[in-house]
C-alpha cells in the first residue's frame, strides 16, 4: 500500500489549488455533484468544502462507523482500488467518505475511524446534518435507512467522479477490485 508523505500531500494540495483556481472561472456543469452545497466537517474538525475536490478524480461513498459488516469492506475495497490505479491517477485521486450517522459519528469518532483504516491524506471522512446526508445519498444513488436499534440498512456503492464532479462509474462490487472502475479512472 502506498501512502502519501506530508510533502507529497502538500504538493498535491498545491496542484489542486492551482487547478482549482483555473476551474473556478468555469461554472460547475449541470450534471456535477458539486452543484450541492452541504456544510460538512472532516475528521480533523475543519470545514470541508464539498467542491474542494474539483479538479481531481474522486472516489466517493457513504458509511457509518458502527457498521460491523460491510463498511469496513468498503474502506478496504477503495484502498485496494486506489492501489490498482495507474500512477498518474493514483497521484491525484481523492477519497470522500460521508457519514449518514452524524449523531454518533462526531469528529473524534471520524478521526479514530480514519486512523483505524490507515487513511492517508487523500481521505476525507466527513459529516454534516442529516438533511445533508440524505441529499448526498440522493446524489450518489445510495439508499439507507436508520433502524430503531441505531443500525443502518444501506446499499453499498462506490462512485467515481471525474474532475468536474460528474459520476462516470458506479460499482457495487465490495471486497474485490472492480476492473471496470480501474479502467474508467484512466480516462478521467
Amino acid at each position, binding site marked *: 500500500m502506498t501512502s502519501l508523505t506530508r510533502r507529497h500531500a502538500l504538493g498535491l494540495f498545491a496542484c489542486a489549488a492551482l487547478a482549482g483556481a483555473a476551474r473556478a472561472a468555469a461554472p*460547475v*456543469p*449541470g*450534471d*456535477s*455533484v458539486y*452543484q*450541492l452545497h452541504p456544510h460538512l466537517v472532516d475528521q480533523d474538525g475543519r470545514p470541508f468544502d464539498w467542491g474542494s475536490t474539483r479538479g481531481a478524480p474522486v472516489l466517493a461513498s457513504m458509511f457509518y462507523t458502527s*457498521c460491523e*459488516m*460491510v*463498511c469496513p469492506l468498503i474502506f478496504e475495497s477503495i484502498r485496494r482500488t486506489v492501489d490498482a490505479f495507474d500512477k498518474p491517477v493514483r497521484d491525484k485521486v481523492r477519497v470522500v467518505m460521508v457519514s449518514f450517522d452524524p449523531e454518533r459519528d462526531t469528529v473524534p469518532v471520524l478521526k479514530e475511524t480514519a486512523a483505524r483504516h490507515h487513511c492517508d491524506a487523500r481521505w476525507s471522512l466527513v459529516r454534516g446534518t442529516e*438533511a445533508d446526508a*440524505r*441529499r448526498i*445519498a*440522493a*446524489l450518489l*444513488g*445510495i*439508499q*439507507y*435507512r*436508520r*433502524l*430503531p*436499534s441505531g*443500525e*443502518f*440498512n*444501506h*446499499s*453499498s456503492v462506490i462512485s467515481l467522479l471525474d474532475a468536474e464532479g460528474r459520476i462516470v462509474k458506479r460499482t*457495487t462490487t*465490495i*471486497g474485490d477490485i472492480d476492473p471496470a472502475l480501474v479502467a474508467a479512472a484512466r480516462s478521467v
Partner: protein
Amino acid sequence: MRRARTGALAIALASACAIAPAADYARLPGGEFTSVLPQGATPGTTAVARVAPFELRATPVTRGEFRTFLALHPEWRRGQAPAVFADAAYLADGPAPDGRPDPADARPVTEVSWFAAQAFCESEGARLPTWLEWEFAAAADETRADARSDPAWRQRILSWYAQPATAALRDVGGPPDLHGVRDLHGLVWEWVDDFNALFVAGDSRNQGDPDTLRFCGAGAISMADRDNYAVLMRVALLSSLSAPDTLRTLGFRCVRPATGELR
C-alpha cells in the same frame, strides 16, 4: 437595470403574498403505528413504531403554489435547475413562471424532482414527510384513523392504480379524511424525504432472503404485511426512482413538526 429587477422582484413578492394564502396544514396526532415496512430492532422484524405528532399539508402542492415559488426562486425554473437536481422532463408541462393565473393552477404540481420538492418545502419552513409519516396519514379514511384492514379502503386505492396515467389530473380538494387531509389517494404519487430508504430490491419476490452484502445490515426490506398491496405499490414506485427523476403522476406535499418550528 438592477432597480428594474428589484422592482420586478418586489412586485412578484407582493403578488405572491396577495394571491397565495397561507398553506393549509392539518394537524395529525401521531401515535403508535404498524408500518408495512418492518420497523423492528432486529432487521426484518415487525414492531410498532411511534410517530410524533406532525402537521401535514392538507392537499398536494398545487401548480399555482409552485409557480409562486418559481417566481421567488428562479434557480428552480425549467432549464435553470441543474441536471443533477432535475431530469430532462422536469416541469415539461409545468406552470408558466410569469405569474399570470392559469385555470390549471388548482391541479397538483407534478414533473417535480425530489430536490425541487425539498427546496419548495424548505422555502416555507417545512420539509418532505418521512415514509412513516406519509403512511400514517394515508391509513385514515373519513371516519377512522386506521382503515387499512378494510378491503373497501384497499379496493378504492387499487382502482386508482388501475386507471391509466394519460387522463388529465383533477384539481386538488377531494373529500377530507378524519384529520382534514385530502387527496392522499387517488390523485398523484407523492415524494417522501426518505424515498431511498424504501429499498425493496428490484425483484421483490425473494422476501426474507437478505442479500446482506448488497444491503448492509438487513438485506432488502420484506413487506411485513403483504396483504397491504395498496401501500406496497407506493413503495414499489418510490423505490424505482432516483432523486432527480420526475413523473407526470408524481407530486408532493410538505410536513412540519407540530410545534411549527423547523427541526
